[in-house]
């Protein structure tokens, strides 16, 4: 199969959207939950504290959903640790077994790593859980070659 690298403008857009999501709505919702926790401190009625705990649970769900979207836009580990760790993080969330081999750590620039990582990460989201995916990285002439193989665990 042939995966197209994600173009630089799209990488940048996706990175920005993830950051906006994290710094904006996610932070606001987390702060709201703290606010509710604070409200709960002053209450003595267990029925009310129970309702507040329920609201906090609902906000946890909102944050989990935002996290899913954020992680799909731009895996957070890609920003901090690059290609290999980011793909492992995506695979682990999806329950996909992943082996990354070859020159994945060899000083590719940030844009190249992002273009390749997002293409493979998008693909990892499309395979069924428990697929075994192999990623082999080799250095081409001024490029990063990524070879992806996969094996379904069982059929039917």
């Amino acid at each position, binding site marked *: 199969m042939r995966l197209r690298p994600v173009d630089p403008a799209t990488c940048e857009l996706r990175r920005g959207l993830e950051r906006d999501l994290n710094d904006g709505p*996610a932070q*606001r919702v*987390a*702060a709201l939950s703290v606010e509710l*926790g604070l409200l709960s401190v002053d209450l003595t009625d267990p029925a009310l504290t129970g309702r507040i705990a329920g609201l906090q649970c609902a906000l*946890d769900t909102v944050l989990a959903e935002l996290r899913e979207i954020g992680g799909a836009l731009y895996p957070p580990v890609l920003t901090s640790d690059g290609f290999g760790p980011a793909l492992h993080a995506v695979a682990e969330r999806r329950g996909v077994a*992943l082996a990354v081999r070859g020159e994945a750590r060899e000083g590719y620039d940030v844009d190249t790593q992002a273009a390749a990582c997002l293409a493979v990460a998008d693909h990892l989201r499309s395979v069924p859980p*428990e697929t*075994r995916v192999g990623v082999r990285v080799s250095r081409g002439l001024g490029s990063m070659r990524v070879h992806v193989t996969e094996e379904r665990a069982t059929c039917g």
Partner: protein
Amino acid sequence: MRVAIADDGALFREGLVMLLRAAGHEVVASVSDGDQLVASVSADPVDVAILDIRMPPEPDGGLTTAERVRALRPETGLLLLSHYAETHYLMRVLEIGTEGIGYRLKERVAGVQVLDDTLTRIAAGEIVIEPSLAKRLVERPASGDGPVAALTEREHDVLRLMAEGRTNNAIAKELFISAKAVEKHIAAIFTKLGLPGDPTVNHRRVLAVLAYLRARRIDG
């Protein structure tokens, strides 16, 4: 408890400061980046420092700052907060230290009880691991194969609580069983999974369990 916080998100940080004060803790410093936190804890030591993983210095200033704080003041407990529960970050947190350290989702410390419990455990030298991450790590494979699938329901609960960094007493309390029963389950888990090491040394046990679970999940 004396606490210092560093997070570049003012809204969340200020809320947490109020929550900590409401819980009876003394907030010694509330700052927006790692450098300010290091300056603060070196001048005025705290019991626990709370750090957002994603803050300046970018991209993961919380982790690099936690390393500096640990080197400067090894006795200071460290609580790393994140919007994401990533095994990769957990492993980086445990490279900084395996005692008096924790990794939790931001929204999960939004209640006084959980916040108190987390800080108390860290100050007591324990490892505190985000329960939703521990739960994901111990999930049984859908195919039903492998040693984790061979654990009994009870052993599986014990494994999850070990992966949260819980002590035997805490596991016993959570599952309403005796500490002796917990020991028996843990010995059975170590045998079934073929884990190395002494299950009675808490932080080594957490590391052995996590290394096993992580390898099982991600190595193809």
